[in-house]
């Protein structure tokens, strides 16, 4: 992985942006933005793998993120024993029945020859099967949701460290992507966009309303953390020593012991917040680098070349004996799995799971803008897009406030237009995103850091 001049510029721009914000708005703000930037970059790499490598469109980002989030809940939350006792058997029965139903449908497809008969048989079996399953299922879920609804009301999870969920989230999202891909990947690209968008909407609405599984709109709060809590840090000896050591010059200048203690306490409180965020940033950064490394390796491998061949000319790749449907499915699943990892990390960072927070504008289209702006087909470009767009998304609000203040400085402070504009500051970010996307597509359609085609 050697970067050329251009890429070094991009990296140094990213680093200097955070240092700049750190000095202007404080290191805490800078780190909050940095953490989200890294997560966005991972999402972007996931989309980039399916779109940039193979040209498979994936508008289901939101759904895969939500699946990753669900994984975080199911892995880390302590199990709710009572709920398992009242509803476990019913759920088990309906699960077994569901498997039987799938097997039955599978056999019907094998045994019945004529196509029209197949539909009728399948339809009837599925209908009756679902009615029977519903009977057990609704009963069990109703019982589960009655268990302590204010605090629990769902099955809980496996009580494992939340960091495992990053892998599990990948598998969850990949599994869902496998089903979607099986159904939809034969479609033309713009149909595929709409279908994946719709299915992600279905995934989120299932998570929103199946309360026995995800607690639905009641949200799951207080998830475990992979990093220490601030309050524990503030009371631990080594951390206090570290803060003292870091600020020794500043503290030594203060002579009065009471003021000194007060200053030190404030420094410890600030420092603990920053330390926690730094830990998150470190963990996320490791994941990002690992994914980046393997994604790059894959891209320059024979497999990556095959993917590029399929993307650039499907017909001739097919003629060379490549199984296009299978390869499309594989890369769709891999891309979705990486998005799922990012989804689990997102929930880990927030410490809470809110299914109603998943909206397509924020979690599908913005990610796509990141990919297009950064440069599809180039992983560093994808990371760069993720960083820059998320940075802009956050920092555009203070910037527009500043600009509006300047432009309306001649007006009366109570002027209606001025007040209205200041009220609608948060919406200017959508304007900026749209404009950026349109300009990039028009004048630099390959993105800021275009794909490098290596001839080896």
């Amino acid at each position, binding site marked *: 992985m050697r970067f050329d001049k251009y890429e070094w510029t991009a990296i140094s721009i990213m680093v200097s942006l955070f240092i700049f914000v750190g000095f202007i708005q404080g290191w805490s703000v800078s780190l909050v933005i940095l953490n989200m930037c890294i997560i966005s970059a991972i999402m972007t790499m996931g989309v980039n793998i399916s779109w940039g490598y193979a040209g498979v469109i994936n508008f289901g980002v939101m759904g895969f993120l939500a699946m990753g989030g669900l994984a975080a809940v199911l892995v880390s939350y302590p199990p709710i024993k009572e709920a398992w006792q009242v509803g476990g058997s019913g759920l088990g029965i309906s699960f077994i029945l569901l498997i039987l139903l799938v097997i039955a449908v599978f056999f019907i497809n094998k045994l019945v020859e004529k196509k029209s008969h197949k*539909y009728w048989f399948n339809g009837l079996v599925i209908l009756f099967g679902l009615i029977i399953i519903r009977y057990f299922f609704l009963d069990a879920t109703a019982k589960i949701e009655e268990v302590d609804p204010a605090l629990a009301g769902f099955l809980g999870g496996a009580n494992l460290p939340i960091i495992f969920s990053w892998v599990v989230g990948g598998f969850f999202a990949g599994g869902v992507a496998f089903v979607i891909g099986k159904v939809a990947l034969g479609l033309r690209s713009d149909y595929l966009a709409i279908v994946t968008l719709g299915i992600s909407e279905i995934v989120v*609405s299932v998570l929103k*309303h199946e309360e026995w599984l995800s607690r639905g709109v009641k949200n799951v709060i207080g998830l475990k953390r992979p990093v220490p809590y601030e309050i524990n840090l503030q009371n631990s000896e080594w951390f206090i020593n570290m803060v003292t050591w870091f600020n020794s010059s500043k503290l030594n200048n203060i002579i009065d012991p009471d003021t000194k203690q007060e200053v030190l306490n404030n420094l410890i409180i600030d420092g603990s917040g920053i330390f926690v965020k730094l830990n998150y940033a470190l963990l996320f950064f490791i994941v990002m680098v690992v994914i980046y490394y393997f994604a790059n390796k894959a891209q320059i491998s024979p497999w990556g070349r095959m993917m590029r061949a399929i993307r650039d000319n499907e017909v001739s790749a097919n003629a060379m004996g490549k199984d296009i449907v299978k390869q499309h499915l594989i890369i769709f699943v891999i891309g979705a799995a990486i998005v799922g990892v990012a989804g689990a990390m997102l929930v880990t960072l927030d410490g809470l799971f809110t299914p109603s927070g998943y909206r397509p504008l924020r979690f599908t289209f913005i990610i796509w803008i990141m990919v297009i702006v950064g440069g599809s087909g180039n992983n560093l470009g994808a990371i760069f897009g993720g960083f820059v767009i998320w940075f802009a998304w956050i920092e555009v609000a203070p910037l527009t406030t500043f600009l509006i203040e300047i432009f309306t400085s001649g007006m009366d402070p109570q002027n209606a237009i001025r007040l209205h504009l200041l009220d609608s500051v948060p919406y200017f970010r959508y304007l*900026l995103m*749209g404009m950026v996307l*349109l300009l990039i597509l028009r004048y630099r359609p390959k993105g800021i850091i275009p794909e490098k085609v290596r001839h080896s």
Partner: protein
Amino acid sequence: MIDFINSIVVLLNFVIIPGLSYGSQLALGALGVTFVYAVLRFANFAHGELMSFGAMITILFTWFFQSQNIGLGILPTALIALPFGILATIVLGLLSDKFVFKYYRKQKSVPVVLAMVSIGVMFVVNAIIRIIVGTETIKFSDGQKFIMKAKQFKAMTGLNEGLALKSSQVITILITILLLTFTFWFLQKTKTGKSMRAFSDNEDLALLSGINPDRVVFITWLIVGTLACVAGTLYGLDKSYKPIIYLNLVLPVFASAIVGGIGSPFGAVVGGYVIAFSEIMVTYAYKKFFKYLLPESLEPSSLVQLLSTDYKFAVSFTILVIVLLIRPSGIFRGKVL
């Protein structure tokens, strides 16, 4: 016998009339999507925002007329404001075409790139709408709310069940019939309509026969702007206007267009009603309906609801997926206008 009529009235009141008005709104929206797809050849993700924009301009003019005390009596003031909204929506469509879509059309870009571009347009229009009116829910229907209230109906017929008829529903259905008749007449009978159909069927052949492509594109935006503004306004009139809701509405609209066969205007209309009725019928609780039909001993104890109303949006997509699997080109083989 009276029980039977009662059950029919229940169905009319809760399923058929809401389904018809929601279906009309979807049909108008889907028709716009289909027009863009057939003539300009891309999936326009910005269509929802176009609808929202039209509704917003209509609302602004409605407020203006209300402040000037101009009204239509029992009819909502929005009807006078509607032409202004249509005009603004057409202008927006033409501007977006001139500054954005035209370049890619001349470049002969692939449809996916145009779809991406339309997402950019969606963001910009979305931002403009939010900057102008914010994100609050706006109710702008005035005039007489009901043509017939449930109580009046009960008193009139002596039945147990009431049938309420909202004026917004009746207006929606009437305007839809009017607009659809006009559109189909235009496509089938006029020379311009025929040239549009030729253009969508085979672009090169149409160019050879001397059809002016710029004129066809212009007319398309006229129609699309009109349809989008009317659909958006009617939806807002019926439910209440909320800028964010139109992004969600674009999904069932697309589903309708594809289910009917994208590119086929008749298919889009049918698809709209199919999606609307299936959304409502699958999530409606039939308990009351069966209460009248079945003898007392067989009366259902549960709600007799196939899916909870939470899954309303999921239904349209399930249908879309099923249709695409069984018959990928939609109910009425699409692609040609």
